[in-house]
């Protein structure tokens, strides 16, 4: 009796999770269907085509926006990860009271509304326009993306620094290593996982950003999300955007899930 009761509740549980997974993946499925649908409006399925996949490489404004997305995300991630590491070490060394205040400040870009962050950077950068007339575009987006991704890098490094043995720094300096060298040779390798996960988070947030880039792009330079947004419902929108996004999603799915599956296979082997 008891056993059948448990199995009914577990069937209910897993159907619930299955339904939620289905709903979360439904938009991705729809995007994929639209990417192989020959109808340009996407209001009905008129036939199979791969033309939109070819168009990714021929539609200049589209592939330029994709390149901009990657250029901004890669540079912003490198800057945030590099400078964020030193900033995190600095913040970690502060005394508790000051640290709390700095963390409050650090949380401003994390918690603030994207729309307000975007407008703030837009305001700051428009003060710079008299000095640098062409600043709007790549450079303003870069400033904005470093601004909103660096706090995440710091948030993922700080817990690693807290786990460190305080003597880890004293040992190499006692042995005569200069402080900066000790930092580089001992502390940074020890917090490497925090830096990497922070950088991955920064890249993910940056490449998919829409709102902040919406306010900080300009002079014809725009990223993928904004390329879509300004073209929605217009003639110059093309389903090649669906095609590109489907390709990207499939690549990411494979990259993330293969190591996970390998892991579970290994565990089966161990048993």
């Amino acid at each position, binding site marked *: 009796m008891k056993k059948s009761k448990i199995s009914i509740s577990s069937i209910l549980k897993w159907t619930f999770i299955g339904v939620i997974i289905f709903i979360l993946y439904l938009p991705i499925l729809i995007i994929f269907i639209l990417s192989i649908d020959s109808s340009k409006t996407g209001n009905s399925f008129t036939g199979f085509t791969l033309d939109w996949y070819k168009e990714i490489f021929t539609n200049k404004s589209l592939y330029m926006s994709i390149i901009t997305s990657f250029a901004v995300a890669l540079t912003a991630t490198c800057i945030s990860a590099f400078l964020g590491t030193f900033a995190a070490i600095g913040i970690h060394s502060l005394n508790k009271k000051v*640290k709390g205040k700095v963390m409050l400040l650090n949380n401003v870009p994390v918690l603030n509304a994207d729309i307000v962050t975007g407008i703030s950077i837009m305001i700051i950068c428009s003060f710079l326009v008299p000095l640098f007339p062409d600043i709007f575009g790549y450079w303003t987006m870069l400033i904005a993306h470093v601004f909103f991704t660096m706090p995440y890098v710091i948030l993922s490094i700080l817990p690693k620094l807290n786990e460190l043995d305080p003597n880890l720094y004293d040992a190499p300096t006692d042995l005569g290593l200069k402080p900066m060298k000790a930092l580089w040779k001992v502390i940074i390798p020890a917090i490497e996982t925090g830096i990497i996960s922070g950088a991955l988070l920064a890249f993910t947030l940056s490449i998919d950003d829409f709102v902040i880039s919406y306010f900080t792009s300009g002079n014809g330079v725009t990223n993928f999300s904004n390329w879509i947004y300004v073209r929605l419902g217009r003639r110059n929108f093309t389903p090649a955007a669906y095609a590109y996004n489907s390709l990207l999603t499939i690549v990411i799915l494979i990259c993330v899930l293969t190591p996970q599956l390998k892991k579970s296979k290994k565990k089966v082997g161990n048993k």
Partner: protein
Amino acid sequence: MKHFKYLSIPYIVWLLILVIIPLIAMIILSFADSNGFDFSTMTFTLDNWANLFDTVYLSAFWNSIKIAGISTIICILIGYPISYIISTSHLRNKMALIMVLVLPMWSNQLLRIIAWEKIFYPVSIINNIGISLNLIGTDFAVIFATVTMYLPFMILPTFTVLEKLDKSYIEASYDLGVSRVRTFLKVTLPMSSKGIMSGIIMVFLPASTGFAITERLGGGKIIMIGNIIESFFKRAFNYNMGSLLSLVVIMVIMGAIVLLSKFDKEGETLI
């Protein structure tokens, strides 16, 4: 490591510049009637503040709180049970399942909104399988899309705390003859409240201040505060009223940050 303190100074300066200067500019703009960001020709006025309680803005604020609030509650009701089921299951690789649930975030968020838009109109690709929906302009459509967009942000933090939770507390409770339901209410739930708290923040704040979902799925009938701010800055070029409304949003979020710092003194719960 005390003498690495100075490494935090450039970062603090950078944050102060990018947070404080736009804030001051917004305060000035909110008391002015200006031509864009042109501070030389602007005139002092209190009109913006007098108009703040206009029904258009009040209803937009109310809509934002209502839609984001309902979406957040639904996210808790779906996300927490999912985290609970997975963390208490006997799966070999729980993380893989969590990854499956979180992965849709890597697909472009705007395109996911468009995917819902495409099937919420009466004429759509799902007509081919005999379904026709007419949901554009309804609260349901907006809330549904918001929940699917932000659900992973509820699952991640709640799963993390449930995984870290020391299972021996629950066993102790069972051993003392406390029922499963009471154990859940008195032990598991309070011990995972931190995760729910950061989930609420990570869902409610972006959901209440976004504008893309209402823009595409609201059919012009559902206006949130993000839509109004966006139109002031990007279409009407009325930076004065736009700044004032942004200031209100900032004040609400500041309240949330202070509230969060009461829960968590170190300010490191967010990830």
